[in-house]
C-alpha cells in the first residue's frame, strides 16, 4: 500500500497532466481549423516515380517487401501511387488506415461531414477528442501519426459534379466509401470519364458488398445499375443500423483491392461482386455482366459525356441524413412544444409510439402506448385490440365520454405521419382527431428533456 503522500502527489500530477492535455486539444483544434482554410488552395502536383526505397522504408515495409508477388517493384509503385478516398466514414477509415500503413504515396480524403459521437463505433480513425471537427482533418491527423511519410490531402467538402472530374484525374485509383446513391453514380461517371479504376464497397446492417468497376473490360456502376433505385427503397446506416466490424471487414477488403491495383498485381473483383453476410458468416462471390455496349457512361455511344445533376437523377440528396417526409397538412400535426403544453395541462389524450420494438428498448416515454408501424400496416389483430381498448379507456376517463385525440410519435416524425395516414383510413376511427408529433422523440430530446437519449 503506497503512502498517503504519494497518492496525493500522484493525484495532483494527474490533474496537472489533464489540464495540459486539454490545452493541447484546444491548440490542436485551432490548428486544424486554420489548416482547413489553407488545404483548399494547395494544388497537387503528380507524384514522381520512385527508383529506390530508403533504408528506413526497407525496414518499415520489410514484411510485405519479401512477398514475391509484391516485392521491391510493387512497393515502389505503391510509394508513387495516389489514391482518392471518397468518404471518411465506416469504410474510408479502415481503408485509409491500411493504405497509409502499407506506404501508399498520397491519399486524397474527401468528406464534407464532421465527427459525431454516433460515428465512433465504426469510424475508427476518429477519436472522442476531435468530435465536431471535419472528418478529413481528423482522419489526416490519425494517418499522420501512423505514417508521416504518406502525404494526406484533405478535401473538406462534398464531391460535386463541378469538382469531381478534376479531382479524380489527379489520382490513380479511386475508392468509393460513400454512403448515398447520388454520390455513387457521380464517382462512377467521373471514373469512366477520367479512365480510372473504381474500387467500390458498401455496408448496411450485417451485410456488405464489394466490387471493382471500370477495370479491364469489366462493367461500370451504370452497367450494373442503369436506373437509380427509388429513393424510398434506399436505407441509410442511421435508419437501418450497421455494425462497425462489418464496415471494417469491407474497408479492409477494399484496401486489398486498391493495393493490388496500385502495385500492378491487378484487382480480383473486376466483373465479380462479393457479398458478405456477417450474421451467417458467409462470403459469396457472384459473376457480374461484362461492360454493356449500350451503357450510358462507358458504352460505345455514351450519352453521359459530362457530369450531371445526380441528386435529381436519383431523387434524393447526396448525404445519408434522414429525409423529412411531408405527408400531412400542418393542421394534422402538432409541434413538440404544443404537445408538452398539452401534456402539462393534463389534457386527456392517447400518445401512440409507432417505432420498432428494438428502438423502444433503447428509450421511451413511459405514458406512450407502443404499436409498431408495421403492425398498423398489416392490421395485426392483437395490436388493433390493444388500440381499441386504449381508445375506450380514454373515453371513460374523459368528460362526458368524449373521444380523446390520438397523438402519434416516432423517432424523427416520418413514420408517425405514415401511421396517421393509416389510422385516418380506418372507417371506425374517422370521428377521432389523429395528429403526429413533428420531429418525434429526437425533438423531445432536443427541446424538452435534455436527459432523454438521442440515437
Amino acid at each position, binding site marked *: 500500500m503506497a503512502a498517503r503522500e504519494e497518492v496525493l502527489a500522484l493525484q495532483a500530477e494527474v490533474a496537472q497532466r489533464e489540464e495540459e492535455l486539454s490545452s493541447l486539444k484546444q491548440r490542436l483544434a485551432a490548428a486544424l481549423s486554420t489548416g482547413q482554410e489553407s488545404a483548399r488552395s494547395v494544388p497537387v502536383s503528380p507524384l514522381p516515380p520512385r527508383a529506390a526505397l530508403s533504408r528506413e522504408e526497407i525496414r518499415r515495409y520489410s514484411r510485405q517487401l519479401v512477398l514475391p508477388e509484391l516485392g521491391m517493384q510493387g512497393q515502389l509503385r505503391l510509394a508513387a501511387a495516389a489514391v482518392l478516398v471518397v*468518404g471518411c*466514414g*465506416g*469504410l*474510408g477509415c479502415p481503408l485509409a488506415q491500411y493504405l497509409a500503413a502499407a506506404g501508399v504515396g498520397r491519399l486524397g480524403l474527401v468528406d464534407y461531414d464532421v465527427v459525431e459521437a454516433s460515428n465512433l463505433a465504426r469510424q475508427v480513425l476518429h477519436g472522442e477528442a476531435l468530435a465536431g471537427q471535419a472528418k478529413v482533418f481528423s482522419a489526416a491527423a490519425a494517418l499522420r501519426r501512423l505514417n508521416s511519410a504518406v502525404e494526406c490531402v484533405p478535401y473538406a467538402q462534398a464531391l460535386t459534379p463541378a469538382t469531381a472530374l478534376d479531382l479524380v484525374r489527379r489520382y490513380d485509383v479511386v475508392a468509393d*466509401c*460513400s*454512403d*448515398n*446513391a447520388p454520390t*455513387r453514380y457521380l464517382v462512377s461517371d467521373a471514373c469512366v470519364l477520367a479512365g480510372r479504376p473504381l474500387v467500390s*464497397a*458498401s*455496408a*448496411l*446492417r450485417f*451485410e*456488405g*458488398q464489394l466490387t471493382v468497376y471500370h477495370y479491364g473490360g469489366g462493367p461500370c456502376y451504370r452497367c*450494373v*445499375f*442503369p*436506373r*437509380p*433505385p*427509388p429513393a*424510398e*427503397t*434506399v*436505407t*441509410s*446506416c442511421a435508419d*437501418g443500423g*450497421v455494425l462497425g466490424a462489418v*464496415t471494417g471487414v469491407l474497408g479492409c477488403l477494399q484496401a486489398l483491392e486498391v493495393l493490388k491495383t496500385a502495385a500492378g498485381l491487378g484487382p480480383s473483383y473486376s466483373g465479380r*461482386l462479393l*457479398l458478405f*453476410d456477417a450474421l*451467417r458468416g458467409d462470403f*459469396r*462471390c*457472384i*459473376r*457480374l*455482366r461484362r461492360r*454493356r455496349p449500350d451503357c450510358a457512361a462507358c458504352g460505345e455511344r455514351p450519352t453521359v459525356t459530362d457530369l450531371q445533376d445526380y441528386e435529381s437523377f436519383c431523387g434524393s440528396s447526396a448525404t*445519408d441524413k434522414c429525409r423529412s417526409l411531408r405527408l400531412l397538412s400542418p393542421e394534422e400535426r402538432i409541434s413538440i412544444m404544443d404537445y408538452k403544453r398539452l401534456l402539462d395541462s393534463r389534457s386527456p389524450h392517447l400518445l401512440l409510439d409507432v417505432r420498432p420494438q428494438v428502438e423502444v428498448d433503447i428509450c421511451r416515454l413511459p405514458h406512450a402506448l407502443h404499436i409498431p408501424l408495421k403492425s398498423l*400496416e*398489416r392490421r395485426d389483430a392483437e395490436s388493433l385490440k390493444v388500440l381499441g381498448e386504449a381508445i375506450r379507456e380514454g373515453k371513460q376517463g374523459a368528460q362526458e365520454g368524449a373521444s380523446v385525440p390520438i397523438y402519434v410519435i416516432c423517432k424523427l416524425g416520418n413514420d408517425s405521419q405514415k401511421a396517421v395516414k393509416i389510422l385516418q383510413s380506418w372507417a371506425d376511427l374517422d370521428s377521432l382527431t389523429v395528429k403526429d408529433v413533428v420531429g418525434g422523440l429526437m425533438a423531445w430530446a432536443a427541446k424538452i428533456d435534455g436527459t432523454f437519449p438521442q440515437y
Partner: protein
Amino acid sequence: MAAPLSVEVEFGGGAELLFDGVKKHQVTLPGQEEPWDIRSLLVWIKKNLLKERPELFIQGDSVRPGILVLVNDADWELLGELDYQLQDQDSVLFISTLHGG
C-alpha cells in the same frame, strides 16, 4: 407440359425484409403448360411469398431498379434476364444493392 420444379429462392441486402426477414426459401413451382422463366417466377413470388409493399420489389413485370438478380451465382444479364428458363434445383438470389458506408 412442364414438370414441377424445386428451386431455392433467396433474398439479401435488405430485400428479405419484404419477406418476413426470411432469406432462404425452398420452393416447389407447380407443373404448368409453359416452362417456368424468371418472369413467371416473379409473378409466383408476388402471389406466394411477398408479405408487404410489392412496389418495393416489383415494378411492371420486372424487379425494381436497385435489385440484382443472380441465377446460380451469375448475373441474370448473362442468362437472358426475364426470359431465362428455370431448371430443377436452380438457385435464384435477389439482392438489394447497399449504399451505406
